[in-house]
Structure formats: C-alpha cells, structure tokens
C-alpha cells in the first residue's frame, strides 16, 4: 500500500514550493534510487501523479515537483485555448536559474528520505525533459553541501546549508551533505531518533556541548 499526496518543499513568503509525493510501502533505508518526474508545460496534472503512484507501487519513492510555483499562476492549465497560450507564456517567462535551484532543493530532499541510496533518477516530458538536463548540469550542488546544519528548531523541508536554514534531523542533513562533508549542530538538541550513516562524513556538535541525540518519545 503506497501513501501519496501533496507536500511542501520550500516556502517563500506566502508562496509554497509544492510537490506530489508517492511513497512506497516497506522500502528499507538506503536501499534504492528515488525518482523525480518533471511535468509538461501544462503543470501538475493527474497523469503525472498516476505515474508517480505507479513507480511507488513498484517500490520507488517518486516526486513530482511543481516547478511553476514561482509563476503568477502555478496551477494546472488545459490543452485548449486560452489555457494553451497561457501555458506557452508561462514557459517563456520561466526562470531557468531559479528553476535549477528548485530542482536541486527537490533532489536533495529526495536524497534525504529514508529509502534513498544516494541516487536520484530524473525524467521529464516535453518542457519537463529540459529540466532533467538541468539536474545533470548542477552535479556539484546536487552532490550535496560541504557543510550542513541541524537544529532542534530546524525543519526538514530546509536545505540544511546554513544555521538559518538548518534541518531538524541528522537523517535529512546526511542526505544534503557531500561525501566527506560535515554536519554541525546549531544547538544542543535533542535530535530524536537514530539514523544510519552510509557515506564518509563528520558530525560535529562542538558548538553544542551536551547536545543530545536521544530518541525523544
């Protein structure tokens, strides 16, 4: 039995970087790649979600990010006029650089999720096909940050790359940290549940002596 639905990857003022997530049942931590699906220029549509669900039923964590979340109208558009012209206009105004950062945010988030083994498979359709290449064009960022941060006031929708954007858990921070990178503690925690380290990394809570990683429940 899969679980699926909308999640929020990032917030900017009132705007939300939303995505559709389909999560498989029973996938152990670090066991398999995840899948990111980029939509056509018409935006987030049912058939994209159904594809994500289909991958989840086959055991893969699948994410459909809404790359048009920064656009004036971020929702789905139809194939017929006037929506069709609106879709072309939205695509023409698309900020590829910001979109690239958003993709990195989404990829890193996926890499921080328990079933992920560090690999993310990207596929896109029509305008979304270009986005799959944008992922490949940002390998350094997509490989993770040299330093990341955790805080007991952090949030796992953050990218963990500064104390102000710290994540809440070591597990998510590990997904955002480059091989041989370092995770630092912003404060003393506690930081909740146990986690598995599968990459070379330093975890350093020097700034938070007495910090605890104890399970909090």
């Amino acid at each position, binding site marked *: 039995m899969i679980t699926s639905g909308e999640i929020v990857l990032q917030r900017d003022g009132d705007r939300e970087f939303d995505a559709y997530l389909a999560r498989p049942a029973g996938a152990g931590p670090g066991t398999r790649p995840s899948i990111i699906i980029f939509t056509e220029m018409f935006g987030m549509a049912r058939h994209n979600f159904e594809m994500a669900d289909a991958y989840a039923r086959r055991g893969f964590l699948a994410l459909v990010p809404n790359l048009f979340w920064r656009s004036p109208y971020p929702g789905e558009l139809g194939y017929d006029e006037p929506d069709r012209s609106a879709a072309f206009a939205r695509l023409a105004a698309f900020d590829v650089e910001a979109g690239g950062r958003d993709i990195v945010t989404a990829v890193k988030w996926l890499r921080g999720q328990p079933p992920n083994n560090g690999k993310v498979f990207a596929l896109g359709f029509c305008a979304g096909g270009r986005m799959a290449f944008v992922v490949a064009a940002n390998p350094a960022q997509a490989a993770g940050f040299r330093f990341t941060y955790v805080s007991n006031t952090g949030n796992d929708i953050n990218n963990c790359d500064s104390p102000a954007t710290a994540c809440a858990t070591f597990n998510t921070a590990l997904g955002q940290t480059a091989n041989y990178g370092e995770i630092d503690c912003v404060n003393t925690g506690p930081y909740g549940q146990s986690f598995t380290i599968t990459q070379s990394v*330093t*975890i350093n809570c*020097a700034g938070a*002596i007495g910090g605890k990683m104890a399970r909090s429940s």
Partner: protein
Amino acid sequence: VNGAGIVVRLRNLSIDSSGFESFGIDGQNMAALYIENCIITNLNTANGGSSPFLGIKFEPSAGTSQLFVTNSIISNNGKSGVVSGGIDIVPGSGVAAQVSIDRSQINGNIFGIIADGTSGGIIKGTITDSVVSGNSQNGITVSSAGSSVVLQVDRTTVGSNANHGLVAGGSGAGMLVSNTNVFNNGGGLFTAGGGTLYSYGNNHVNGNNGDDGSFTGTVGQQ
C-alpha cells in the same frame, strides 16, 4: 555506520538512549570510525529497549577497519545477564580490526571493554591513559579460541569492576600490560582456555578481593 570504505568522524556528541535503543554507535562496515569527545550513556533496559545494549559495537564486516575512541565517556550501558556494556569489538570472519581507545572513561557498564574473536576476525588494539571502572562484569576482556585478538594496555586504571579486572579467554586471546593499576576488582587477573596476560613488569595489581591472580609471563622493556 554502514558503508564500504567510508570514513566517519563523530565529535562532541552526547548520545543518550534513555533506554530506547540497543546501540549507541553500531559500526558495521567502514574503513575508519572516529569517536572523539563523545558521551555515550544509558543504552540499557530503562525503557524496555531490546538487547544487546552496547555503548559502541564495532563489528566490521569487510576488509581492514579502524576504530578510534578518544577522550570519551561511556557509561551506564548494558543489560545484566547478557554480553553487553561499554565497547564490544567483534570483527567478522577474516576482517582485521585495528582499535585505539585513548584518554577515555568506560565506567558503570555491564562489561567494560570486550575484544572478541568469536566471529573469526583479527583484533589488534591499544588502550591507553584510560579508566575502566565500576563495571558489573569484567573490566577488559579479550576472548578468542582461534583468530588473534591482542590488546596492549598502558597507563590505564582498571578498578572496582565486580568481576575480574583483566581477562583473557581462549588460545587466540592475549593482553600486553604496562603502567597499569588493577585494584579492588572482584578478582584481578584471570586467564582461561590458553588465554595469556603478559606484563611489562611495571604494573600494580593489588587488593582484588583476595584474588589478584597472576600474569602468564613477562615481556622485557626495551
């Protein structure tokens, strides 16, 4: 910790299970694991967690793997009646574990430190400038009927452990001991099954409940 060839450094962490987890740190597969300035405590039954309750379990499954525990406190771990406690080193078959425990306190656990060749792994380790005290079983134990398991213990205090201070069990197990105090344990030195405890001739072994025991032999100083 589980990744082929990885190097993991854990610094300045307080790992307090409060009785929920069974391992503080579980080293399963890695090239090297550094534990520096850490406190690992309360891996025990307080809240009904499951066995085996170890502060550090080092059980590398492949190749040669190194463990460095420096300036750390490992206390109040383990479950009475099972092999559990502070640090348990059990490399897999054919795996070589190299271990350094330096300037650390391993106090108030069930067993203190165990180096175990049962799985067929080889262990070479040093314990220096440390205290292994108040554990309710043995202080430092080496155990192997087959593969070589040898610890060198220097400038270390082994005191007030309820069972023996230093124990070598099995023909593959040995300890080389210098500048070390073994005091007020349930028994001092204990060997069985061909295990060996060698002294460099400058240790203090006294007051161990009338059972100081004796070293298997001495090793000359250079």
